[in-house]
């Protein structure tokens, strides 16, 4: 995965509106909490497809979600109502993702992935994060992924840029170099 998942322009518009509403109300902190709560519900197995199921009345689906997260703030509640009203509940997942990345930008956070052959120890991960935080001036958090095809070393992908310090990457660049060596 390279950066956050793609979201549709419509989802981004809803997310931006909800974010601005929360900011205006001064309830950004609460809104962020609500996002977490709703994301947690969405992550429950089978929940996302059920919430997007057009055979079930939209109001019922929204009601269900509200019951699952009982104490939503005004901005989050409003967002749900509007999505229901506009028959757009099926993009809720994308709206949440887009809102989360807006939050990340707001707080100067950057999320990325780190690929290694075997999982990194916690302190190794922290030192990597600190290194990239230093370099980018943002608060970097890296998600771990194991990828045996790297053979060794690490590969970090952050905001559309990939730093490759893996054995495979080095071998590949050596191969490219050898292929273009001018032996004439």
């Amino acid at each position, binding site marked *: 995965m390279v950066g956050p998942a793609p979201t549709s322009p419509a989802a981004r518009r809803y997310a931006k509106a909800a974010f601005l509403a929360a900011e205006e109300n001064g309830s950004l902190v609460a809104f962020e909490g609500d996002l977490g709560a709703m994301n947690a519900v969405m992550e429950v197995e089978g929940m996302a497809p059920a919430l997007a199921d057009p055979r079930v009345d939209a109001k019922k689906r929204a009601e269900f979600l509200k019951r699952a997260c009982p104490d939503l703030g005004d901005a989050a509640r409003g967002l749900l109502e509007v999505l229901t009203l506009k028959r757009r509940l099926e993009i809720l997942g994308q709206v949440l993702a887009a809102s989360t990345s807006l939050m990340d930008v707001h707080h100067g956070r950057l999320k990325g992935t780190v690929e290694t052959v075997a999982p990194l120890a916690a302190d190794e991960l922290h030192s990597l994060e600190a290194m990239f935080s230093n370099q980018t001036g943002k608060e970097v958090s890296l998600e771990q992924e194991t990828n045996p095809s790297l053979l060794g070393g690490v590969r970090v992908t952050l905001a559309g840029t*990939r730093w490759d310090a893996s054995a495979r*990457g080095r071998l590949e660049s050596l191969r490219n170099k050898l292929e273009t060596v001018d032996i004439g």
Partner: protein
Amino acid sequence: MELKPSEVTSVLKKEIMDFQGSASSEKVGQVLAVGDGVARVYGLDDCMMSELIEFRGGVMGMALNLEEDNVGCVLLGDAASVREGDTVKSTGRVISVPTGDGLLGRVVDSLGKPMDGKGALAASDEDLRPIEQPAPSVVERAPVCEPLMTGIKAIDAMIPIGRGQRELIIGDRQTGKTALLIDAIINQQRTGGGDPNNPEQVLCVYVAIGQKQSTVVEVQQKLDENGALPYTIIVNAAASEEASMQFLAPYAGTAMAERFRDEGRHVLVVYDDLTKQAYAYRQVMLLLRRPPGREAYPGDVFNLHSRLLERSAKLADNAHELNPAYSKGGGSLTSLPVVETQEGDVSAYIPTNVISITDGQIFLEGDLFYAGVRPAVNVGISVSRVGGAAQTPAMKKVAGGLRINLAQFRELEAFSQFGSDLDAATQQTLNRGARLVEILKQGQYSPLPNAEQIVSIFAGTSGILDELEPDQVKEFESGLHEHMRSNHGDLMEKLDNWETKWDEGLESSVQAACETYREGFSA
């Protein structure tokens, strides 16, 4: 090139020892959707327009649509290995093709890869040039002043082309468009003996777009048979190739030609044909969901051709002092774009566009072609807007009245079908016209030198043919050419010289020589 294994090993050893295992960083994105030769890529925020994008398995793509959150690109190769979710890399490069002498005599594709089985190209990394280049500016250009002889009587006499000009060849399918281009290329042999190292030799680039593979093979064969291949590059984007390759081919061919132009050489580029390029561009743009306009072409289809044809130019002699990109001034790039019409309709979108960008057009007409008038040039609506300045003075003088004579003939011919009683003057115009039409006919693969052309046209306009039956004209003409070369070699040499002026002395000697031959011919 002799290579000893030990040398190879030492080079490789050095490379490996110098190789520092350093971390590399690159811009990556992800394939959102792929199909029909186009892909949408998510990420790649700083992607440039026309940037090359590397997909898995080394397949390349080119960015064409930069949108808010994704990049639309065409795939320049086998799309089958590209999957949704693949990671892609941006390269920071735009498409470049090899250029230079190493390509002469070769057949390459739109990316400059050889496709004639004759091995690798003799071209290095320094020879790479981006396929899109800015056209020379106003101060770097000079007016068209030297002729580009096609060796085809009807064209060199009435629609002369100058070096640096853009002359459109337009006509329905199967009207001899390709034949005309091939003859023009073959005729360039006369400029430098067919030796590409001779600085006088006009070099040629034949760009085949969406042609049948068999047509291209035939073209290559004919050029080879006629000794024209050594100074010609064939850029082939056949009908079976991706649409992206087809619409890139003309730019690639032009980049190769520009290299020679900028070194002070003269180059002739033919695009066969731009209609198919526009089709390919339309296909790609529709798949990328650009809004369609007239005839479903995208809004920038005019620019597709104008920015290509603007690169044809005659450079000023001091161009290299004005711009270091030119190593020598005075070069030229002449182009003969081809456009195919449907039922002779020149008012369709692409024909009108290209007519307005070029410096004239040669209209080939199906009716004439089937009536046996070949090359089927419709003189009435064919023009050359700048080539007149470059026509050789002798040809200019001799062919002066040809156009108007033919026009009168065409008019009277239509009219005379209604009545039988014609006055003598009308009869005379009709007789003369019929012979002029005959003398302008010309077979394939037989472009003529300047002197032969002048003699033929002179024989027609001065009335030497009037006594012959129209079907004798062809035989008379070839006999006359032979007679002139063997008995009046000095005269022919003089006529071959572009500088020679046509004066009374010259006229009377040519007239006398022609009359001597006619007397012998009728006897």
